[in-house]
């Protein structure tokens, strides 16, 4: 089997040992079965086991291996190795505190996610069967519910970099719309109240970095636009 050597440049920082972060040059042999970036990173880890990164499902479902790959946010397990110019520069997701190497502290990101109450609010007694929707009502949730909370979008958003404590961010707002759009949810007005603030929703200036970054091909900006539409419809 043919193998080739790939060059990597990896962001390294261990707060217990290093005064400041640095970039480490390292190479690894990959063969034809190594198709995704994560395959090469697993080999890198075997070569130098001090490199720290998160990974779990290795198939784009868990969202744990989100990285900044050659300057763009993405999932290592969904990024094709053959398309990557070398050296492949791997950095942690921008804008979040770094725990070690490629591992970031996602506390702020999840705090914003929880702030939009990401669960169905319906005070009616549960029916005998499911709470039903028409196919059209269900269709509205497509392209919204698939978010895996990898944080690629929110950490690509300058508004989230400047105000991560106040701006919900594209991932949280996509989820907010998922429940605003859900016909089974009864808290639409409270949800809109929760976002009608110059910071929480309206820091979005529609620059579309989130759309560019989303490894699942979702469009948080469109969802943000629909939340604004709902607010306008409520107000006028």
């Amino acid at each position, binding site marked *: 089997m043919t193998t080739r050597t790939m060059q990597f440049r990896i962001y390294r920082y261990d707060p217990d040992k290093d005064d400041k972060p640095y970039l480490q040059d390292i190479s690894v042999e990959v063969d034809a079965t190594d198709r995704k970036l994560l395959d090469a990173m697993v080999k890198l880890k075997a070569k130098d086991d001090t490199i720290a990164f998160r990974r779990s499902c290795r198939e784009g479902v868990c969202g744990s291996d989100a990285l900044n790959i050659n300057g763009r946010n993405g999932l290592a397990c969904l990024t094709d190795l053959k398309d990557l110019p070398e050296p492949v520069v791997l950095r942690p997701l921008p804008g979040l505190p770094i725990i070690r190497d490629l591992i970031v502290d996602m506390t702020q990101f999840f705090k914003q996610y929880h702030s939009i109450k990401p669960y169905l609010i319906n005070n009616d007694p549960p029916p005998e069967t499911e709470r039903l929707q028409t196919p059209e009502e269900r269709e509205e949730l497509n392209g919204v519910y698939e978010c895996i909370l990898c944080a690629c979008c929110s950490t690509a958003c300058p508004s989230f970099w*400047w*105000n991560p404590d*106040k701006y919900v961010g594209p991932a949280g707002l996509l989820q907010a719309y998922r429940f605003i759009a859900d016909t089974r949810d009864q808290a639409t007005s409270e949800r809109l109240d929760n976002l009608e603030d110059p910071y*929480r929703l*309206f*820091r979005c200036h529609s620059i579309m970095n989130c759309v560019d970054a989303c490894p699942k091909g979702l469009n948080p900006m469109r969802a943000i636009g629909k939340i*604004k539409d709902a607010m*306008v419809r409520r107000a006028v």
Partner: protein
Amino acid sequence: MVNKIVVGAHYGLKDWLGQRITAAFMAAYTVIFAVLLAGQPDLNYETWRAFMSGGFMRFLTFLFILSLTFHAWVGVRDIWMDYVKPTGLRLALHVLTLLALVGYTGWAVSILWRL
């Protein structure tokens, strides 16, 4: 209240919608202005003055000045909100921005009615 993040000022929608509407008005004004100006037989100070001091243009230009004031207020305030963190400093910058914009508006309106 030391480190608690406080959000929920309910003026986000009004400002965002206002900024969109004023932008649309200014875009329309620019087209109307360009078309009417191009239709002037010959462009010198006198025709320009007559053009700008007519009731229709004065009405539109007055609205344009007000639109620009509101639009610039939201835009500049957004910049302060993004980049200036200390509340006192931000409030001071908001006030200075407002004072400057109100001053410019009065000045522009007085010029418009002097033509």
